[in-house]
C-alpha cells in the first residue's frame, strides 16, 4: 500500500495534466455552446503544455540561464558548467511554440464563431442544427 501511495506522490504532475485534459476533452464533446467548446479546447491545449513543462524540472536545478558568465571576452576562469545544475531547456522551447499555436487556433476559432453567429444569430449548436433542418 505504501509503495502505491509513494508512486502516486512521486508522479503527481501526470495526474494533474490528465485530469485537466479530460475536462477539456469532455467540454469539447459534451458542451452545446460553441464558445464553451472553444474554451474546452483551450483547456485541452494548456494541459499538454503543463505536461511538457513538468518534464523539464530537475531536483535542485535553477532556471536555464547562465548568470556568472559575463561575456566570453574575459571568461578564462569560467569553471565548467554541469548539466545537473540547470533545468532542461528543451520543453520550454517546445511549449513556446505550443502556446503560440494555442493562441492562433483560438483566434481562428473565434473568427469562425463570429461568422456562424453572423449567419445564424445564435451560438447554441442545437438551435443552429434546427435552423439548418428547417431550411
Amino acid at each position, binding site marked *: 500500500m505504501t509503495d502505491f501511495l509513494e508512486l502516486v506522490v512521486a508522479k503527481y504532475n501526470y495526474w494533474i495534466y490528465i485530469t485537466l485534459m479530460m475536462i477539456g476533452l469532455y467540454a469539447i464533446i459534451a458542451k452545446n455552446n460553441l464558445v464553451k467548446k472553444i474554451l474546452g479546447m483551450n483547456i485541452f491545449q494548456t494541459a499538454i503544455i503543463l*505536461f511538457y513543462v513538468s518534464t523539464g524540472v530537475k531536483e535542485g536545478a535553477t532556471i536555464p540561464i547562465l548568470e556568472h558568465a559575463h561575456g566570453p571576452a574575459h571568461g578564462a576562469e569560467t569553471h565548467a558548467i554541469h548539466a545537473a545544475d540547470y533545468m532542461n531547456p528543451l520543453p520550454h522551447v517546445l511549449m513556446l511554440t505550443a502556446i503560440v499555436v494555442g493562441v492562433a487556433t483560438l483566434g481562428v476559432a473565434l473568427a469562425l464563431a463570429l461568422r456562424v453567429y453572423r449567419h445564424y444569430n445564435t451560438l447554441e449548436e442545437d438551435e443552429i442544427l434546427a435552423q439548418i433542418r428547417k431550411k
Partner: protein
Amino acid sequence: MSQQYPALVVVVPLLSAFLISPAGWANKRLCFPIALVALAMATGSAVGLLFRVMNEGVIVYRLAGWDPPWGISYYVDHLNALVLVVVAVVALANLIPAKKSIEREFPDNQGAFYTLYILMVTGLLGIVVTGDAFNLYVLLEIAALTGYGLLAMGEGGRAPLATLNYLYMGTIGACFYLLGVGYLYIMTGSLNMVDIAGLLPSIYESKAVVAAFIICMVGVWLKMAFFPLHAWLPNSYTYASSPASSLIAPLATKVMIYVMIRLILTVFTPDFTFITLSISKAVVWLAVVAIVMGAFLALKERSLKKMLTYIIVAEVGYMVGGAWLGNRAGMTGAILHIANDALMTLCVFLAVGNIVYRTKGHHFENLQGLFKKMPFTMGGFVIGAVSIIGVPPTCGFFSKWYLITGAIQSGQYHFMVALLFSSLVSVVLFFRVIEISYYEPFSDHHGHGHDHHTTPMEEAPLSMVIPLLIVAAGLILVGLYTGDIVEHIISFAVPEGLV
C-alpha cells in the same frame, strides 16, 4: 544548388507567401504569378530531390548546421521524396484552374486567399520532408490553420459551422499527436525520428511506448478522417469554395496517411507495429468497416461533391488497411495509392470545380445535360471516375492490384471483399451521375423568368479545362508506368524487414 534542394522545396513557397500577402494590398494581379513561380520552383526542386535520392539513397540535411539529435534535420528517403513530388504537382496543377474561380468568388481579398493557399502547400511539403517529430507538429498546425481559413469561406452559414467542427476535431487530433511525441520524448529524450527509432527497441515492452504509439495513431487517424473519426470531413469539404476543396481534398488526408506510414516504418519500425503489438488484424477490420461505410454513405447523397467526400473516406480505408496488412505488397499498395488517389481525387474535384463554375451548384439537378454542354469536363470526370472504380489503363486499378495481392498473401480475405464491394458501389455511384448528365435534357431552370442574363451554358473557360485534361492523361500515364514507379522508388521505400 542541388545540395540545397531539401531546403528549397519548403523555403521558396514560404518566402513567396510573405511576398504575396503585401502584393495583395499593393496590386492584386501580382499574387497569381508569384504563387505560380514559387510552386513551379518547389515542384522542380522536389523532382530534383527525387532523382538525387534515387541516385544517392537517403539524404540528410542539417538545418542551421547542427548535427541530428541536437538540431532539426531532414531525412529524405524514397518514401517522402515520392510524396513530396505528388504534393507539389497536385498543388501546382490545382493553382492554374483555381485562378478564375478565385477572381469570381473572392474579388477583394485575393491576396489573402493566395497567401493561405501557398502557406497550406508549404505546411504539407514541410510535413512530408521533415525528419523531426515536433517540427512535424508545427507544420501540421500550419496546414490545419490555413485549411480552416480556406474552407471557411464557402456557402452561407454552413461552411464556417462545418469548419468549426473540423477545427475542434483537428485540434484534438493534433494535440493527441503532440502528446504522443511528448511520451516518446520522455521515454527516449530525443525528438529526431531516426534517433528515437534507435533508442526505442530497448524499451519496446514498456506501457508508455505502447501508449505513445496508440495516442499518435489516434491523433493521425483523427486528422485523416479514418472511419469512426471522419464526421468532420464530408461537411467541411462539401460547403467549401471549389478552389479550396480541390486543393485540400486530394492532399490533406493523403499527407496524414504518409505520416502514419512514416510512424509505422521509421519511428516504430515494422517489427514493433506488427509483432510486438497484435492490433494489426483489428485495424484491418476497422479499415474494412471504413471502406464499406464510406461507400455505403456515399449512396444516399444527392450532392455530387458530398458523394465524393464519402469516397475519400473509403479511399482512406484502402490505404490504412493496406498499410496494416503487414506485408510488402500491402505496404507498396498503400504508398502507391497515396500518389494515385491524390491524382484521382484532384481530377474529379477539378471537374466538379468546372461544373460549379458554370452551373453554380453541385447537386444532381445541376448536372443535367452536361455531356452535351460541357463534353471535355465530363470527359475528364469520366476518366477520373473510371480510375476510382479501378479500370486497367488508369492508375486506380494498379494500386487495387497491390492491395488485393497483399490481402490474399496475408490471408485477410475480408479486406479483398471490401475492396471489391467498394469498387462495385463506385460503379453504381459514378454511373448514376453519368446517367443524369447523359440522359436528362439540359433544363435551363436557372433562367426562371426574371434573370435574363443567364450565362450561355457552354464549356468551362480554357484555363480550367486544359489542366483537367492534363491530369486525366496523367492518370493513365501513371497507371501505365506503375511498374517503373514501384521498382525504382517504392521498393526501396518499404524496408527489408517487411517480407
